[in-house]
């Protein structure tokens, strides 16, 4: 008797297989920076993406998942080369990742031309929200200008009359400056750009900042550059002279190295570690348990990206060839996002809330990021009307 049971179950097993035969597993390419100082961000994104896959039982839409991680070395030409490799050599179904806007812009064309669905879990250059938008592109983060625009509004609320802006001279840096200038009502007394990514010596810019005597200073320096800037800002004795407002400069990956320097410096964010929804609690708790450190917004956005892929593949029951249907499913964004629910705009960029974060002393005396207020609700980027999609 037992033998026949075994035979039948084997039969069923092989019957079941052909249905899925044509798509054994879902292949996902993940491009981020795993070398040099920004490797800290890349690792945070990888850990969060892997955590999401663990939560999904290592299956996406019922299919086993295979992830190929590639290092773009923070260089546009290397990022493009690795994107080409993932598409032509590894034949991936999805490409996820991209910290830097310039790397994403360089890698967009090969993905769109080959109709490979691309999900940016961080970079959100204005061009892709506008004229370069594509049905095959989705963002689980934000459009670059939205966060600094939120800070601009907050500076108005705080009655700041004049501001001095400093940022790196690459695609995202220009977007950030444009974002603040769009909403900030006060006078811009100075706008300085520094060479990216190798200039980490801000002495010239800080001296000019002090000379301009603004009410406040706005800064955008992600990753190690943020650590360097803050150190030199404090070293130059500006901490108590000129208040500092930031975007993407103070986060869970840089806070350990910024320490006390970061106390009392506000920043805006679309995701914060103390958001009350269940998905976020589970994500933060499991991440801390596994990695002994708290996740950053880079990680949260990558976690959501995995859930988005899962929702798409599940909608087509594993037949990833049906790209149009997957795209329709992704546009509904029906998955439990760690930042609570959000909707997609016509250009596939999220419409979501932005919160104000401050750095305060935590219960154990270590500086911690704490949400203070909601600056704006259901904010959509200003470029969506330039996108030709519906």
């Amino acid at each position, binding site marked *: 008797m037992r033998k026949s049971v075994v035979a039948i179950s084997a039969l069923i097993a092989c019957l079941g297989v052909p249905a899925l035969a044509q798509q054994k597993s879902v292949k996902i390419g993940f491009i981020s920076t795993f070398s040099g100082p920004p490797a800290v961000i890349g690792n945070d994104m990888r850990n969060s993406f892997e955590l999401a896959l663990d939560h999904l039982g290592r299956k996406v839409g019922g299919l086993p998942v295979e992830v190929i991680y590639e290092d773009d070395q923070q260089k546009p030409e290397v990022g493009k080369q690795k994107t080409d490799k993932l598409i032509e050599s590894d034949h991936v179904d999805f490409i996820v990742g991209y910290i830097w*806007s310039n790397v994403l812009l360089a890698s967009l064309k090969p993905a769109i031309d080959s109709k490979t669905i691309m999900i940016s879990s961080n970079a959100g250059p204005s061009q892709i929200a506008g004229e370069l938008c594509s049905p095959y592109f989705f963002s689980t983060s934000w459009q670059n200008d939205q966060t600094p625009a939120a800070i601009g509004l907050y500076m108005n609320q705080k009655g700041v009359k004049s501001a001095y802006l400093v940022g790196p001279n690459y695609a995202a840096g220009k977007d950030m400056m444009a974002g603040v200038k769009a909403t900030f009502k006060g006078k811009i007394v100075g706008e300085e750009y520094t060479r990216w990514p190798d200039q980490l010596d801000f002495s010239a810019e800080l001296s000019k900042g002090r000379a301009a005597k603004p009410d406040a200073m706005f800064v955008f320096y992600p990753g190690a550059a943020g650590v360097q800037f803050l150190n030199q800002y404090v070293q130059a004795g500006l901490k108590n002279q000129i208040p500092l407002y930031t975007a993407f400069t103070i986060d869970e990956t840089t806070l350990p190295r910024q320490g006390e320097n970061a106390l009392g410096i506000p920043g805006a964010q679309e995701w914060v570690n103390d958001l009350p929804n269940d998905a976020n609690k589970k994500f933060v708790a499991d991440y801390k348990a596994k990695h002994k450190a708290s996740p950053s917004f880079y990680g949260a956005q990558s976690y959501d990206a995995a859930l988005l892929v899962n929702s798409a593949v599940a909608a087509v029951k594993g037949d990833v060839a049906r790209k149009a249907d997957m795209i329709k499913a992704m546009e509904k964004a029906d998955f439990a996002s760690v930042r609570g629910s959000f909707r997609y705009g016509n250009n596939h960029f999220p419409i979501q809330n932005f919160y104000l974060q401050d750095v305060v002393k935590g219960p154990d005396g270590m500086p911690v990021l704490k949400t203070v207020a909601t600056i704006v609700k259901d904010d959509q980027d200003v470029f969506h009307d330039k996108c030709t999609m519906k």
Partner: protein
Amino acid sequence: MSAFFTVRSLVIGALLVFLALLPVYVATTGQFFPLTLFTRIIILALAATSLNLILGYGGMVSFGHAAYLGLGGYVVGILAKEGITSGFAQWPLVLAVCALFALVVGALCLRTRGVYFIMITLAFAQMIYYVAVGLDRYGGDDGLTIYRRSQFAGLIDLSGKVQFYYLCLALLLAAIWLVSRLVNSRFGMVIRGSRSNERRMRAIGFPVFRYQLTGFVIAGMMCGLAGALLANHTDFISPAAMHWTRSGDLIVMIVLGGIGSLFGPLIGAVMLLVLEEGLSRLTEYWQIVVGPLLLFVVVYAHGGIDGVLASLRHA
């Protein structure tokens, strides 16, 4: 006749047959990645061949030859961004711009000798690198995506992978044939004579400067063409294409392949890039092998692989 079937010509023959038949293999297996890889190898071999003309045959150690790769690419990229995508307009302009740049740079550099020549060619390449970094309108450091490849009004469709591959292969073989004619012509004899003994060349009545400058300009134009091909191949151009380590890579290809030999650059390009691609799959630390290998070739096998193949004639 026996000299014809030497080991070297057999290896080179086999390499050329392989390159010619590669698209057939790719079509059957549907694996397109080797085609992309070898298109890039052929384009860089073209650039190395142009450098070999002045470095291998002419003894002019230019450490800034990647500047022309960048120049060719940026002319195509800038014109494409401004809406001019016809190859008939772009490519002649690439040659003109590279010729002009080579003329000016050559006229200044060829006044120096030895290590100063190496340094001044490096300096001019760095200058073009920083011009590209400063071109904010064309992306500066972030690079420039080329959305439409050079159009040749239906004559050749550059976005067709196989057609583009054969175009590059044809241009490479034409370049190698041109170099073979050049170096044996009267002009070539002057260039090679100046490498062997410049003082004697002057004593017997050769105004060496104008011939070296002509060689410099020809090499610059040929490398500019390779730059235009590279920009079309990667649909993207950034200052990194002109970084001084890229000029170093070109020299490494020539030395590995066989300095001052016709097919040395091609052999060197294939070896270096296949090594890069293959090893990088095995270990992320593949460069740890290339460094010492280069040192070994420089110290012991001065003729590079071509030299080794040639010495096998008696085998």
